[in-house]
């Protein structure tokens, strides 16, 4: 798949990792720019905003979470953070600060590219408001879900949840985002709502609900729709 020449800013101070990322992203059709410090990253984003940012959480002059927070004040450019293994808290903090998704170091090239495609995918891609996953079709305009053309009956909340995932197929949606957008402010901690309703959604749309193919859990963080 061509990345259509999107410009990606890679923010990392490890030369070997930057070199690897440059090779992977360039081969996938992206144009790569580099920054090695927090300051360089902020300068680069303000001078010439990229289409997406790959951001390491540990930088020599600060921390990636501060970069994400600063950028979010004035830009919605998609941010994918690189987090270390066993660093669940950092991951959650970065997502709360406005990062869109994460990959855990060390990562495979397919994983990184899948995340990049997901954060760069536009809502209105192909001018179609329907998302197709195998034999499943989620029609955001009609608020309908069909399997092999046959309509499945989801409650409004179940459709809202599935719809939030379908707006950005493949992209991580955190518990907080789902609770705020579906139930509204003040419900951010009621994560058990999500457990129960996603169990119902899976029971209706998944061929094998106990081994879900479409709605993927990121334990302790959120959910995403698997697109490939």
């Amino acid at each position: 798949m061509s990345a259509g020449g999107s410009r990606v800013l890679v923010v990392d101070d490890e030369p070997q990792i930057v070199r690897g990322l440059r090779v992977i992203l360039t081969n996938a059709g992206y144009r790569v720019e580099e920054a090695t410090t927090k300051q360089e990253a902020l300068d680069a984003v303000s001078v010439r905003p990229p289409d997406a940012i790959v951001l390491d959480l540990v930088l020599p002059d600060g921390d990636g979470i501060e970069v994400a927070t600063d950028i979010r004040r004035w830009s919605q450019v998609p941010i994918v953070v690189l987090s270390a293994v066993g660093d669940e808290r950092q991951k959650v903090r970065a997502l709360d600060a406005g990062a869109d998704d994460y990959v855990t170091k060390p990562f495979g090239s397919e994983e990184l590219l899948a995340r990049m495609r997901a954060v760069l995918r536009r809502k209105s891609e192909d001018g179609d408001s329907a998302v197709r996953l195998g034999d499943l079709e989620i029609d955001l305009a009609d608020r309908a879900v069909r399997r092999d053309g046959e309509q499945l009956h989801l409650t409004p909340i179940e459709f809202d949840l599935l719809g939030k995932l379908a707006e950005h197929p493949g992209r991580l949606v955190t518990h907080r985002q789902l609770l705020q957008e579906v139930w509204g402010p003040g419900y951010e901690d009621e994560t058990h709502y999500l457990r129960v309703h996603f169990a119902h959604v899976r029971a209706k749309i998944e061929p094998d609900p106990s081994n879900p193919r479409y709605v993927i859990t990121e334990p302790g963080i959120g959910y995403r729709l698997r697109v490939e």
Partner: protein
Amino acid sequence: MNDMRSRFSFDRIAATTLETLAWVGLATAVVAILDSVATPAGLGSLYLIAVLAVAIRRGQMAALAAAVLGVLILNYFFIQPLHQLTIADSDNVVALGVLLLAALVVGRLAGQSRLRAAEAELRAEQAAAREREAVMLADAATALLGGTDDLVTAISAGLETAGRGELRLGASSAPDPQDGEISLRLPTDARPVWLYAAASASWTEADLNRIATPLARLLDVAAERENAAARSAEAEAARQADAAKTVILHAVSHDLRSPLTAVRTAAAGLREEGTTDEDRVALIDAIEDESDRLTRLIGNLLDLSRIEAGAVHPLTDWCDLLDVISGTVSHIRDPLSSGRIQIELEGELPLVRADASQLDRVFSNLIENGLRFSPPDQPVRITGGVGAGKVTVRVVDRGPGVPGSQRSAIFEPFHSAGGDRRDGVGLGLAISKGFVEANGGELRLQGDSADGTAFAVSFPLVEQPAGVG
């Protein structure tokens, strides 16, 4: 105390008087019976017997009283002229004088022997008391040498036996006597210890003071011994910890070096000009696989260090175990492996309170272990349910099982079946157990070794949250 003594003394005087009167009365009765057959002066010697008896039993003063009384009665009732305290016959005067003198001498002699007997008795009592103290201290010393854990308790038990339950010890900064007990601070160097004696006890303050010093020395020796034992235990624990660290360092450096070597070798192979395309793909696969192996090992070491340091700090929230497991399975990269995982959970499981990302680590370890130990054509099954107040999920494999002798050891870090430590296998179960327990759950090994292995993760069944929007 004074009241008691005077009362006691009054009783004694009364008893002495009565007994003296009785002996004199008895002698008088015999004299009266024999009056017709013997001379009064001769009969006077009968009073001598009474005086002797009183002297032996009641002492010198009572004997003197008995002698005077006897002489007066003899004179008044039996010597002419009768019923007067005058004496007609000079023989009788002599006889009475002799009787009085004899009574005095006998009474004095008897009284002295009586006093000596009393002194001997007192000395015997004191000797018995000393013996009792000596036995008690010996028992205490035996308790000390026996190396009992709490020496104050042990010595106290010895004291209670030897002191017939009248004495006890207590270690406290301030005295804490029970009803009516006398307290005495033992002159110990180390912690303060108090000696208590029951109020009714036969122990005087002087007795207690006498045993206080040897007891204190014993306790000091005991305290010193305890300190020495504690120091050597600490030294031993430190030595063992060092030994364990060395073992872990050896294991870790081996586990880290193997994948690193494989990566380095693969890179060198890629650089060779003669390497075929097919080989290049194989070498790249090797680099990826070995890096994954390193990643898992480092992740496991990190988890283990957090668990061992008690720094797990779960972010507890409502968790659907099925939801967590589905997330875990979706992250297992190898499609051949993920196809072998069969989730056989029916319906919905109740939510439990736990940290989802830590449970993800638990199930990831258990499932990967199961995949590794099962034959390639056999599934790893995930079953579960609710029962006995718990929500339980089992990861069941068809591997060779765990021999009975290893069933408890497998949860120890760096233990691994068959000595296979690839991928830090020896850490997975220790980490799983650590995370499950930090989250208030339980990880157990179930199933017999012939039928594969089942690891059961259980959490308490709790009241479910109200209202789900």
